[in-house]
């Protein structure tokens, strides 16, 4: 009971914006609207919103590693792809009966996390940091894309699952929950919406607790001054590795949910564009805070999709322009700047009274 209370208290802290009744009332209202959303709109929009939600996990993973930890990683896309392919290979081979898709989800995330542990071990214990970390992780991502793209031949298969080169894998079963009255198949519709929304709330709150804990303190300290952190007795590389693996698991969760949502995964999901886009969402939102990252990602995704529908190729150019604009106007993130401005206005009003 006492321990639970400590966890609750850590939902607020110096590492996360938003505290007090006003913030949590707003949070509850938004959550309420999100819960009622499928009742108010059509099936297509619900499925599309799930698509947006799916990407938030990879954005939060980047927020953790880059924003809080200070290491720019292009590797999130690689973990996304590994987990996506992992889910495909597992479910195409073993089917969806007895709730196996849920086990496949966990296994795929686990495989990606294991890969991240290996990669991270060599990077952090090899003292690779700063821009070189970005270069190594980008190289890993692009290598994976190139490798998967050349697996078109029939010799490239794992069990019955063909890798299919550039066309990618498809027709894996969606997530299925075993139920006494018959399995519940979570197509990209209301069912999947509530599952992903639930996961999102859990991950968001979980990360808030993590970042405001002693562990989060050390992560931020390493971003600010790794030498000082080490000289306070913290094994910096171990902390960096653990953060990297947690981030990789979150990116992997994105990958699995994406694959289960669309029932396909292709090598281009690990390409240059795919690796750059999450960076833009997170940078525009405000990488040093979970809430601004979450809001920013959803906003930019919605704008990007609208532009893709009406302006096709210009959408990517707009993304580039948006990134440049962010760096020039609000280097900490546009959404974060607006949030800070709002909270300043609010405190001024309270003090004025």
């Amino acid at each position, binding site marked *: 009971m006492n321990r639970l209370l*400590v966890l609750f208290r850590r939902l607020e802290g*110096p590492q996360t914006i938003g505290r007090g009744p006003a913030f949590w009332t707003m949070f509850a209202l938004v959550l309420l609207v999100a819960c009622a959303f499928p009742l108010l709109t059509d099936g297509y929009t619900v499925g599309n919103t799930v698509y947006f939600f799916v990407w938030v996990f990879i954005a939060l993973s980047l927020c953790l590693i880059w924003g809080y930890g200070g290491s720019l990683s292009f590797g999130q896309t690689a973990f996304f792809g590994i987990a996506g392919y992992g889910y495909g290979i597992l479910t195409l081979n073993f089917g969806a009966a007895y709730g196996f898709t849920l086990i496949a989800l966990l296994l795929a995330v686990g495989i990606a996390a294991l890969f991240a542990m290996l990669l991270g071990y060599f990077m952090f214990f090899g003292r690779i940091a700063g821009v070189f970390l970005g270069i190594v992780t980008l190289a890993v991502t692009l290598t994976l894309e190139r490798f998967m793209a050349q697996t078109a031949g029939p010799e490239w298969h794992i069990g019955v699952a063909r890798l299919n080169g550039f066309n990618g894998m498809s027709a894996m079963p969606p997530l299925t929950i075993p139920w006494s009255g018959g399995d519940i198949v979570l197509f990209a519709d209301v069912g999947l919406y509530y599952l992903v929304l639930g996961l999102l709330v859990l991950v968001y709150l979980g990360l808030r607790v993590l970042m405001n804990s*002693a562990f989060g*303190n*050390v992560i*931020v*300290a390493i*971003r*600010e*001054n790794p*030498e*000082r*952190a*080490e*000289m*306070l*007795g*913290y*094994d*910096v590389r171990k902390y960096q590795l653990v953060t990297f693996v947690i981030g990789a698991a979150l990116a992997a969760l994105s990958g699995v949910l994406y694959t289960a949502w669309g029932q396909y995964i292709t090598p281009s999901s690990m390409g240059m564009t795919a690796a750059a886009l999450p960076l833009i969402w997170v940078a525009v939102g405000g990488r040093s805070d979970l809430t601004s990252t979450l809001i920013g990602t959803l906003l930019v995704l919605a704008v990007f999709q609208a532009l893709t529908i009406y302006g096709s190729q210009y959408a990517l150019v707009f993304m580039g322009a948006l990134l440049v604009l962010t760096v020039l106007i609000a280097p900490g993130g546009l959404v974060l700047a607006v949030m800070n401005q709002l909270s300043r206005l609010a405190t001024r009003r309270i003090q004025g009274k």
Partner: protein
Amino acid sequence: MALLELRRLNKHFGGLHVTNSVNLALETGEIHCLIGPNGAGKSTLFRLILGEYHPGSGDIYFAGENITALKSFARIHRGLSVKFQVPGVFKGLSARQNLEIALQSRHRGVALEQEIDRLLSFLGLEAEQGQTAGNLSHGQKQWLEIGMAISLKPRLLLLDEPTAGMSPEETHLTGEMVQRLNAEGMTVLAIEHDMAFVRQVARRVTVLHLGQVFAQGSIDQIIADERVAAIYLGQAHA
């Protein structure tokens, strides 16, 4: 018994012999100052003691244990602590959070908050606790970092130019702080250029020159030593 002992410590950077067979023994409970002209190898010696550099040859003993192969964080766990030359605070975080990060592995919950308050008042930084550390004055940053270093309750405190950039009053206050810590049982090794500070605190002084121990003794002996005056004036080669 010596708390810290350096035995024939060597460090090369390419052809540059920055630490040349240094022998140094630090007694438990003393305040020892390390002086010497720029480039004498003082900061390098600190980095060797802390494990940021690894010696080409020689050994480092701490409380009788050979720590030459230990990683930095492990040496901190043994009872070493440091304040760097350039204030190494967490600039983007509040002064309070800086101390929390230093203290959190020893204290938890209410005890942690109390300990932070106690340290803030010891450092005279209560009013600044909410400020971002990067916005503090130079002297306040120095004290904040000293606070972080001593919060670990080290057996040996390494201070690299603790009074650099401080006014004479601040320097004197820092000297008193060091003496108070020493009275509580902390052994101190300080690199310092400010002779007033050295005279105020040091029981023994070691002069480093060109990576070697050049002279050792009380402050009066060192000041009386003409050879020491000569190297400071750049005449050692003459």
